[in-house]
C-alpha cells in the first residue's frame, strides 16, 4: 500500500530525513520509535504533504500512485490521515462544521454524494461512541481550549469520521490518561481492517500493549536504523536507545 524508497527531506536547507526505506502492506500495523528529534514527525509531515519540507531525493508510492505528486488535500482524499502530535486550534469553527466540510469534500473526490444534515448527524453519533467523545466538545471551537487529552481523542474521532486507508498517529498516546489510552486504542483497533494500514509513532511500549504492531522500527538521525517485531519495543523499553545509537554511529563511521 505504501512504499517509501530512499526518502531524503530537508527544512530550510537542513537535511532531516536521510534515506528512509519502508514498506507498509494492507492490514499491517507499523510502530515507529526513536529518540526526540530523530525525524519521526518530519516523516509524518512529509507523507502528509507539508510544504515547508523539501523532498530532495527518493520516492513514495501510495496505492500505486506517486504520493509526492499529490497536494496535501488530495493525499487526504486518497485516504492518508495524520493524527497530529500537536493538533491545531481554529477559533470560531466548530468541530462539527469543520468535519462536515472535510467529510463532504472527501466524498466529492471519491464520487459520492454529500451527506445531508441528518445523515451526517447519524454518522457523528455512531463514530462518537467509538472514542467515547462528549457531544459538547464537538459544538465548541475546534481544539480551542481543549485539554491535551481531549485534543488527541478528537483526532481519533476525526479519523473515524474520515475512514482513511492509511492512518499515521503521531504520539497520539502522549497526554492521555490511562482510561483514555485504552479507549482511544480500542477505537483505533476497531477501525483496523484487512484493507487498511496504520503507522503509530510512539515513545512508549504501553500503547503497543493495546495496538499490537506487526513491525517496530527505530528512527535515528533521519534513518531507520533497526527494524524488528513487537519484541524490539520491549527491548527498547528495558535498555533505552544508547545501544542502538552506538551501533548506528559505528556503522556510519
Amino acid at each position, binding site marked *: 500500500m505504501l512504499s517509501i524508497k530512499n526518502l531524503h527531506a530537508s527544512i530550510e536547507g537542513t537535511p532531516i530525513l536521510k534515506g528512509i526505506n519502508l514498506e507498509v502492506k494492507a492490514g499491517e500495523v507499523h510502530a515507529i520509535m526513536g529518540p526526540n528529534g530523530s525525524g519521526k514527525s518530519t516523516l509524518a509531515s512529509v507523507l502528509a504533504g507539508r510544504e515547508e519540507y523539501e523532498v530532495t531525493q527518493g520516492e513514495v508510492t501510495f496505492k500505486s500512485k506517486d504520493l509526492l505528486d499529490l497536494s496535501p488535500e488530495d493525499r487526504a482524499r486518497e485516504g492518508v490521515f495524520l493524527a497530529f502530535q500537536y493538533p491545531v486550534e481554529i477559533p470560531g469553527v466548530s468541530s462539527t462544521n469543520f468535519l462536515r466540510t472535510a467529510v463532504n469534500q472527501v466524498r466529492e473526490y471519491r464520487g459520492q454524494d454529500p451527506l445531508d444534515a441528518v445523515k451526517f448527524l447519524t454518522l457523528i453519533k455512531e463514530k462518537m461512541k467509538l472514542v467515547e467523545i462528549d457531544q459538547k466538545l464537538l459544538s465548541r*471551537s475546534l481544539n480551542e481550549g481543549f485539554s491535551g487529552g481531549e485534543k488527541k481523542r478528537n483526532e481519533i474521532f476525526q479519523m473515524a469520521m*474520515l475512514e482513511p486507508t492509511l492512518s499515521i498517529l503521531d504520539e497520539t498516546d502522549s497526554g492521555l490518561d490511562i482510561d483514555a489510552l485504552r479507549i482511544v486504542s480500542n477505537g483505533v483497533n476497531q477501525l483496523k481492517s484487512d484493507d487498511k494500514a496504520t503507522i503509530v509513532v510512539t515513545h512508549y511500549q504501553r500503547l503497543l500493549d493495546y495496538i499490537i504492531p506487526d513491525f517496530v522500527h527505530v528512527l535515528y538521525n533521519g534513518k531507520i536504523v533497526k527494524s524488528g517485531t513487537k519484541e524490539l519495543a520491549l527491548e527498547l523499553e528495558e535498555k533505552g536507545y544508547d545501544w542502538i545509537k552506538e551501533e548506528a554511529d559505528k556503522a556510519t563511521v
Partner: protein
Amino acid sequence: MSKDNQILEEFTSKEYEHGWSVNYEADEAPIGLNEDIIRWISAKKDEPQWLLDWRLKAFRAWEKMTEPEWANVHYPNIDLQKLRYYSAPKQSKKAKNLDEVDPELLQIYERLGISLNEQKRLQGIAVDAVLDSVSVGTTFKETLGKLGIVFCSFSEAVHSHPELIKKYLGSVVPMTDNYYAALNSAVFSDGSFCYIPKGVRCPMELSTYFRINAANTGQFERTLIVADEGSYCSYLEGCTAPQRDENQLHAAVVEIYAAKDAEVKYSTVQNWYPGDKNGKGGIYNFVTKRGICAGDNSKISWTQVETGSAVTWKYPSCILKGDNSIGEFYSVAVTNNYQQADTGTKMIHIGKNTKSRIVSKGISAGHSQNSYRGQVQVMKRAHNARNFSQCDSLLMGSKCGAHTFPYIDIQNSTAKVEHEATTSKIGEDQLFYCNQRGIATEDAVALIVNGYAKEVLNQLPMEFAVEAQKLLALTLEGSVG
C-alpha cells in the same frame, strides 16, 4: 446546519459578480456642481422651498470646507466638478406602486438576487430599491402601513410626512458635520425613510438595496430612521455597483434617532465594486453614519460587513444621550488587493449608566491597508459609563497592513473603559491542518475567516449572514497560496 457550509457549497464564482451594468434611458443632471444644479435636483423632486433652502445652506457651508486628510487612506484628488449629481432611469410616469414600475428596472434587481415581487419575497423582509439617484419601489408598504410604520423612499416622505422630515433631518448629523456630510446635504438624491410609531415592534426586517448603475455619477443617499418611544426595528442595507475603470464616489449619510425605550438594529453588507487586482477603478465610499440614543433606556446597534470599495472612510457612531442607553458596533472589514479601509466607530457617552460595546475584526490580504479608528468619549455627566472594545486584526500574507487607532477621552472618573487588541496571521498550521483533512485551501481560508469573524456575523439576520459569509470568501479568493 451551519452557515459556513452553506457558503462553501454555494461559492463557485471568482470575479466580482455584480460588475455588470444595464443601459437604460436616463434622466440626468448636467455634469458639475453649483447652486443651479442643486436647484435642478430639488425641482426634479418637486421639493418644498424649505428643503431647497436647507440644501443651499449646506452647499454654501461646504464651499468653505476642505477635504479631510487625517484618515489613513490615499487616493488621487476627486474632481467634483466632473461628476454628475443626479441620474435616474426614465419612467414614462411616476409609479404609484410596484405594479407600475418598469419591468426592466425590476429585472435589474432580480438579477442581483433581490425580488421586489412581494409574493416571491421571503416573508419578513420589506425592501426599498434605490437605483442610482432614485428609489424604484418599496415592497410591503401596505402591510407596514396598517401598523403605522412608514417605510418609503426619502423623496416620497418629503411629501407624505414633511413634519417628520423637517423635525429629524440633520438632527443627528448636522449639515456642516464634515466635508462629505455637507456635500451630501446639498446634493442628496434619494434613500430610505423609516418611522416606527410609539410602542410598535416592526414585524419584518426593513431593508434598502442600493445599486449604482450609471457611470460618472456620484451616489449620495440619505437614510433616516426614527424609532419612537418603546418601538423596535431592524434595518438592513445592501449595495453593489458595476465594474468600471474610473473611480466612483459614494457619499451617503445615515441618521438614526431612538426615543425613550426604543431599539434600532442597523446592519449593512457593503459590497461596492472594489477595483481590479491592480487597484484600478472601484468606489470611493465616504460615508457618515450616526445614531442618537436620545431617550432613556434606548439602544442602537450597528453591524457592518465591509468587503467592497476601493477606499472606505466610515465610522458609524452612537451618541448615548439618554440615561442607561446602549450603543453597539460590530464590524468585519476585509481588504484585498489594493483596497484601503479606514473604519471604526465613535461612542459618545453623555447620559448616566450608558454602555457601549465595540467588536471590530479587520482582515487584510494582498497589498491592502486596513485601519481601525475608534473613539470612546465619556462626558462629565456620564456617571458609571462602561465601554468594552475588542479590535482584532488578521493578516494574510506579508504585503498588507493592519493599523489600530484607539482614542479615549474620559472626563468622568467613574467610567470603566476596556480595550483589547490582537493581531494574528492566518496560520500555515491551520491551513495545513484543514488540507490534511481533505479541505481545499480556498475553502480552508473561508472556514478560518468566517470563524474569526463569527462574533460579528452572528449579529446579522440569518439571510444576510449567509450572504456576508459568501462575500468574505469571495473577497479573499486567491489571497493565499
